[in-house]
């Protein structure tokens, strides 16, 4: 981890500068029109700047930083609604680091860091698909993995499987399986269903060297913090742009931001955002120290995603007519917020998990 918060702030500054230049709202809007699964030019930039290797061990040419550095990246990506599949790729890198053997790590990690390969990981909380191990050392696979985040843009998939009682991920190239894009309104990210029917794969393609339970906990923590970071970043962005609009839009001869009915809603949103941010920053700090517990992370996520949804939806309303148009930005963030609210567990599921553990 970064022991030094000044260094983290420097990282944030540099990521924000790049995204403000390379991914202003016009770029996001052009992406929506393109119907591409991701912005290839931006992806190249992200890779060139080494962001994909922030948390990967230095042995594999990463920077060896911790979850606090990754959280900065996710927060800034959320802030600019950047159409790049960072979470799928970085979760894959995390899974390969934790569960792969040395050969697998040597092979995959540099490909992921360089951005040459984009990856997607099936939900580690779902039950694994059982594989049949054959005498010739191959495995036979039949199964389906639903709603794989960043699947549409992925070249490589990590799919949760079980072989001989051990759980791990099968690593498959896109050409070797069936991928069906599941269209969602958030066009800055994508989901896919993937399936395989009775195909044979080499055993070397299964990552089962590490301790799965431990790896699963770490992956879910990583995913939850990523969604939390994306949410606070997105809330800040949509809220700030709405406040700017309230200051310039005039009706009845004065800025609409001078009307108390709007001011009070804005103040409530600010108070909610500050609260969600405080909890997020605390769990990131604790996670970087290896001290974060599941209930506290899930609570932070629940608070952040519900704040994002609630603030975001009112930002459409606060904009009035233009908020209803494709050309103004609130809808882009609201669509991201609504996806965040169901990624890696719904708010209700996250709160259930956290309260049951608090009560235990």
């Amino acid at each position, binding site marked *: 981890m970064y022991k030094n918060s000044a260094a983290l702030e420097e990282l944030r500054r540099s990521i924000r500068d790049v995204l403000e230049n390379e991914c202003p709202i016009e770029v996001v809007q052009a992406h929506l029109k393109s119907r591409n699964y991701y912005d290839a030019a931006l992806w190249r930039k992200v890779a060139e700047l080494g962001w994909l290797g922030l948390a990967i061990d230095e042995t594999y040419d990463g920077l060896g930083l911790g979850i606090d550095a990754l959280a900065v990246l996710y927060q800034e990506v959320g802030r600019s609604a950047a159409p790049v599949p960072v979470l799928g790729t970085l979760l894959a890198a995390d899974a390969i680091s934790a569960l792969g053997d040395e050969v697998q790590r040597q092979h995959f990690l540099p490909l992921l860091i360089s951005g040459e390969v984009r990856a997607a990981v099936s939900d580690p909380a779902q039950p694994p698909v059982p594989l049949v191990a054959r005498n010739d050392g191959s495995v036979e696979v039949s199964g389906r993995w639903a709603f794989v985040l960043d699947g549409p843009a992925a070249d490589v998939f990590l799919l949760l499987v079980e072989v001989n009682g051990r759980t791990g991920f099968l690593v498959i190239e896109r050409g070797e399986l069936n991928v069906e894009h599941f269209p969602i309104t958030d066009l800055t990210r994508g989901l896919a269903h993937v399936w395989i029917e009775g195909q044979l794969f080499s055993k070397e393609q299964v990552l089962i060297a590490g301790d799965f339970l431990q790896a699963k906990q770490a992956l879910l923590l990583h995913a939850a913090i990523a969604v939390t970071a994306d949410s606070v970043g997105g809330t800040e962005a949509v809220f700030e742009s709405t*406040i700017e609009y*309230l*200051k310039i839009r005039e009706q009845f001869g*004065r*800025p609409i*931001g*001078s*009307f*108390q009915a*709007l*001011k*009070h809603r*804005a*103040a*409530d949103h*600010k*108070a909610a955002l*500050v*609260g*969600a941010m*405080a*909890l997020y*920053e*605390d769990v990131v700090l604790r996670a970087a120290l290896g001290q974060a517990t599941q209930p*506290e992370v899930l*609570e*932070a996520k*629940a*608070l952040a995603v*519900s704040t994002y949804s609630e603030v975001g939806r009112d930002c459409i309303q606060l904009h009035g007519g233009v908020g209803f148009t494709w050309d103004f930005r609130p809808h882009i963030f609201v669509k991201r917020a609504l996806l965040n609210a169901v990624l890696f567990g719904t*708010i*209700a599921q*996250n*709160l*259930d998990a*956290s*309260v*049951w553990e*608090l*009560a235990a």
Partner: protein
Amino acid sequence: MNTLVDERSDVQFAPMRKRENLDDFRAELRVWLAATVPPGWQEKMKGADTTQYVAFQRWWVSELLKVNLATPHWPRDWGGEELSLRHQIIIAEEMAKACAPDPDLFTISFYHLPATLFGYGSPEQRERYLEGAKNGREVWCQGFSEPGAGSDLASLRTKAEHKGDVYIVNGQKIWSSYGMYADYCLLLARTNPAAPKKQAGISYFILDMKTPGITIRPIKQITGEADFAEVFFDNVEIPVSNLIGAENEGWKIAQATLSAERGLIVFGLIERLALAFERDLASAKDTWLQDDQLRREYGMLHARMRSVRLLIRQMLRETEENPEVGGAAALAALIKLNWATLLNDYTLFLVRAEGIGGLHAQPSVLGGGQNTGIRINDFLKSYGWTISGGSNEIMRNIIAERVLGLPKA
């Protein structure tokens, strides 16, 4: 009530002598609290009358005084300990953990009076009044709000006319906490009705509550208790020597009074709320915890509680690092709004979660704080935070204009 007091043994503790090491300081506080806080005092104070309440408050302050914990934040020259904010945070944490009584009858005496007199009082005023406030002998109240001057405090109309060596006061104050028990009052009154700005015509006085012409009436609240009083003035004379600062400078001085406690009181209350969350969950295993909706509501409230707790710590840290700024006023408004709303929502959640039992009418615990476990009373009492000390609506105005920079109407 005094049976509670008589049971206590007189062991000698000295947390202040251990102040150099924070862990030792905390440990000594803890043993002192364990030996001093009467077990089950809240249960025994259930349904207590106001005489018993005042007696218990005075007894608790006398215990605090023995170890100099009543006013540890005061300067040494005035019998305080000049304790750092970090020490005061530890005291608040340990008081919360020990479920110690809060000396709320003395809030004005211990915080607002010194903030006012150290900043603006004359040497004679400090000499005369601080000692009595510090040792709990004299209780102080605040005379700021009026029926026509609540959120818009500066429009207050209680008049003080300078005649010879006295000011003659006529008018009415309201929402004076514990005004019916007070010996003295920090009073704001209008001395120049013709001032160009309403803030410019206000002066600040020390008022002896036993002066002829004063009528004090307790205000019965929605809980049935009376924590506040309204005070009427009919030709009440205040000697000119009791003017604090210069005539018509009262508004500025009032700002110092109002920022007196720097978030420590809310900090202590949130620590107590955090413990209430634990207790309430532990007692709900077979009841509302089994209900999907209520369990999830609790989870979200718990997340909000943690976030407010983090924010107030952040504010105190900022105050400690930069005492002159006085803990980012912007953050203070955000914390006040989040805290008051959380308390109101959580206490109502418990009423609903407990069904008909949550509505059980029971005698209040006078001086028992915000989370006495009597659900309906705790809920009704929580409006004290959403309305007083700057209502939620005033906080929203401050946030909108000073934090977000939205234009004034």
